[in-house]
């Protein structure tokens, strides 16, 4: 079946360093969403990318959707301790099913 792979699985950074997580799908996606899950919490929606090559920014977070709509990335500039958590990408396969296929997530630890 369709898979969404995410790397790295874990990342430890010093506060102030940058962080990037990458998401790759085995097939073309209709759109991709990103979620953040704080330790002990539930996933919370961050953003959605729909168009090929789309780039969106939210303060220190930059999200990209690849030209072929098979990969995506999330980049955080100058990490802060509040960025700690697990970041998931979730892709929608073609067809209006409403289903999302989640990547395994990247867990970010930030050392103050």
């Amino acid at each position, binding site marked *: 079946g369709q898979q969404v792979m995410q790397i790295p699985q874990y990342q430890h950074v010093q506060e102030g360093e940058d962080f990037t997580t990458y998401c790759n799908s085995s097939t073309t996606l209709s*759109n991709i*969403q990103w979620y953040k899950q704080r330790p002990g*919490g539930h996933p919370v929606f961050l953003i*959605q990318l*729909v168009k090929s090559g789309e780039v969106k920014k939210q303060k220190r977070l930059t999200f990209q959707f690849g030209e072929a709509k098979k990969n995506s990335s999330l980049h955080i500039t100058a990490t802060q301790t509040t960025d700690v958590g697990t970041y998931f990408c979730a892709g929608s396969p073609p067809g209006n099913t*409403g289903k999302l296929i*989640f990547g*395994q997530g990247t867990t970010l630890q930030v050392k103050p």
Partner: protein
Amino acid sequence: NAGVTQTPKFRILKIGQSMTLQCTQDMNHNYMYWYRQDPGMGLKLIYYSVGAGITDKGEVPNGYNVSRSTTEDFPLRLELAAPSQTSVYFCASSYSAQLYEQYFGPGTRLTVT
């Protein structure tokens, strides 16, 4: 709005027991989902529903059943619990299909021993 609520928060089951995980949303969303999350893993879709009376299997439906008699409620039934069903279960809802974000409940942590 309370959003998506789940009960119970925690539960310990013995092997072979059954239970129902409750999920309710007050946002009038058509789509509802059940996921399980194992340690260090992403979310795996168990079942989903596109409206009252309509349900369909996700990636990992074995050992589970669902029903959707109302727009608000989407209970998940575990029959004959097994240790492999130890996990955190999340219910989610969305207004419609692909272009809408999913709202997650706080989760139910289930241990089967």
